[in-house]
């Protein structure tokens, strides 16, 4: 359900387009041999090309091209075999070239599409306009000195993919669902690590509003560099509300760049300078046009992994999982792999419940990532086998799991050590029950009159067997004998 705003003059539709900057996973930069490692000492990951020293020539990194194509194929986009790098000219202290190398007129990836997952199993296709390759800028630090800004060029020249959506999104929920899904796909593809805290993915959020039913787009604002899924939602909601109030109050939306302030939860105008942007794009004379072979693209296509949508459908079909459960399990590739390792050859629904329930709960509580889980997929599988074979009851299994999580021991070891093995042998249970019946004739008479009192016998059998009797078998035998 698309979100709308009920204003005083009527209902307003929110129209959003996202430009996501995703850092390409590569060893070296887009046009230089400097490392892309995060967190190095200032200006250590800088080649002379990145510092824009005179006479330096950019040379294109093949892996960055490959990654952009791979990302394009992941969103079912057209790959442009011919693309061109342009210079986008502007001055800023952390841009030593005085221009950013980007792709304006001939991007490497054309139109594609991504399916966002909304609440209650609803989903919707969102158009993607293009993906182009470009250089990241450096980092400016303004708060270390009263009179000077400090510049670190480590990030300068790292390859970014700018992924531009169509204005197809209709609210904060959809915008954040889009970012979540895009991040998931790029992580599956291995083309971006999706690490938003480190700035590997950030979005420019274009928002406009229009009266419901109108087909014309309103004037939009662009909120720059929003770096979390939650902030994207908040920025959209704040900005749309602001625009509606402005328009209903007789004002006009100014097309401008804004920034989102997470501590105040508001957007505000970023550049008061009236000067219109004039980037004076032109083809970079240092770089020849890029011409790819269809074979190059086909080889990448042949090597694509199973993506979240396909995996979700497969989980539903072959494991009988619900749409919701499958969605949770495929959001991260590691989770899906873990689940499959647990489910392999075992009860898949039980596996899904244990992974999403006890395991996720325990990991969350302990603040541990799945990759460092003290209970491996194999170990959890062992526990599920113990439940499946009636070696332990579901209730005992929770205690065993807690011990596994704490000690890292296998389920079998813990069951043996603590003597938790469930007694399913009817003979043994029957013997215990017969003894209780023989020594409690009064209770037997009462229970025959009032079936509710059978529970007392269940308790006695459990007591007699140290809580290890299989409850199903106990109930069955009591019903047989006390009719």
């Amino acid at each position: 359900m698309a979100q709308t705003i009920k204003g005083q003059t009527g209902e307003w539709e929110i129209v959003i387009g996202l430009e996501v900057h995703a850092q390409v996973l590569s060893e070296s930069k887009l046009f230089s041999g400097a490392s892309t490692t995060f967190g190095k000492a200032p200006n250590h990951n800088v080649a002379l090309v990145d510092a824009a020293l005179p006479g330096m020539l950019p040379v294109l990194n093949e892996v960055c091209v490959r990654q952009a194509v791979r990302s394009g194929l992941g969103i079912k986009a057209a790959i442009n075999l011919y693309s061109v790098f342009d210079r986008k000219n502007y001055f800023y202290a952390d841009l030593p070239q005085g221009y950013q190398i980007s792709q304006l007129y001939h991007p490497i990836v054309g139109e594609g599409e991504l399916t966002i997952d909304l609440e209650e199993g609803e989903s919707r296709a969102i158009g993607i306009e293009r993906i182009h390759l470009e250089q990241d800028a450096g980092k400016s630090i303004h708060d270390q000195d009263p009179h000077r800004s400090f510049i670190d060029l480590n990030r300068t020249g790292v390859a970014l993919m700018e992924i531009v959506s169509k204005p197809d999104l209709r609210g904060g929920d959809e915008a954040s669902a889009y970012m979540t899904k895009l991040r998931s796909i790029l992580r599956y593809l291995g083309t971006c690590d999706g690490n938003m805290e480190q700035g590997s993915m950030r979005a420019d959020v274009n928002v406009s509003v229009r009266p419901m039913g109108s087909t014309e787009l309103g004037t939009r604002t662009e909120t720059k560099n929003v770096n979390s899924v939650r902030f994207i939602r908040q920025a959209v909601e704040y900005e749309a509300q602001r625009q509606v109030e402005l328009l209903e109050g007789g004002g006009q939306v100014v097309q401008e760049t804004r920034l989102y302030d997470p501590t105040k939860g508001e957007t505000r105008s970023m550049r008061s300078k009236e000067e219109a942007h004039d980037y004076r794009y032109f083809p970079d004379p240092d770089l020849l046009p890029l011409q790819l072979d269809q074979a190059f693209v086909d080889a990448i296509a042949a090597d694509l992994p199973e993506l979240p949508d396909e995996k979700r459908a497969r989980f539903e079909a072959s494991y009988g999982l619900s749409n919701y459960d499958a969605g949770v399990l495929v959001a991260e590739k590691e989770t899906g792999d873990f689940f499959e390792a647990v489910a392999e050859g075992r009860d898949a629904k039980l596996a899904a419940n244990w992974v999403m329930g006890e395991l996720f709960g325990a990991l969350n509580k302990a603040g541990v990532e799945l990759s460092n889980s003290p209970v491996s997929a194999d170990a959890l599988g062992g526990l599920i086998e113990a439940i499946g074979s009636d070696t332990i009851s579901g209730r005992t299994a929770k205690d065993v799991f807690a011990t596994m999580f704490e000690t890292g021991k296998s389920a079998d070891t813990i069951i043996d050590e603590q003597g938790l093995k469930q007694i399913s042998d009817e003979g043994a249970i029957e013997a215990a029950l017969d003894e209780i019946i023989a020594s409690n004739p009064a209770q037997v008479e009462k229970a025959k009159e009032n079936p509710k009192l059978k529970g007392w016998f269940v308790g006695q059998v459990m007591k007699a067997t140290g809580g290890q009797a299989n409850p199903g078998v106990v109930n069955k035998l009591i019903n047989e004998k006390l009719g």
Partner: protein
Amino acid sequence: MSITRETVEQAARLARLTVADDDKDRLAGELSAILGFVEQLDEINTDDVEPLTSVVGATARMRKDEVNAGDYPERVLANAPDRVTDFYAVPKVVE
């Protein structure tokens, strides 16, 4: 196409160049003359011609994704007018 004094000022501002008032009219005239010369190309029909991005007739060569540069802040910062540790220091950039 005729370049006005205002266009000269705008172009100078974008390029961060200081142009003396006395020079602006002269530059407007020179730039107009240059554009006028190039405008001769308008006589040719270019409807079906793609803009030329390179005259070499070759396409880009790509390099392997290898780290083979960097880790030399002293070389990078050698010409920096001002520095603090390994940062460039520049006049305060105000947002």
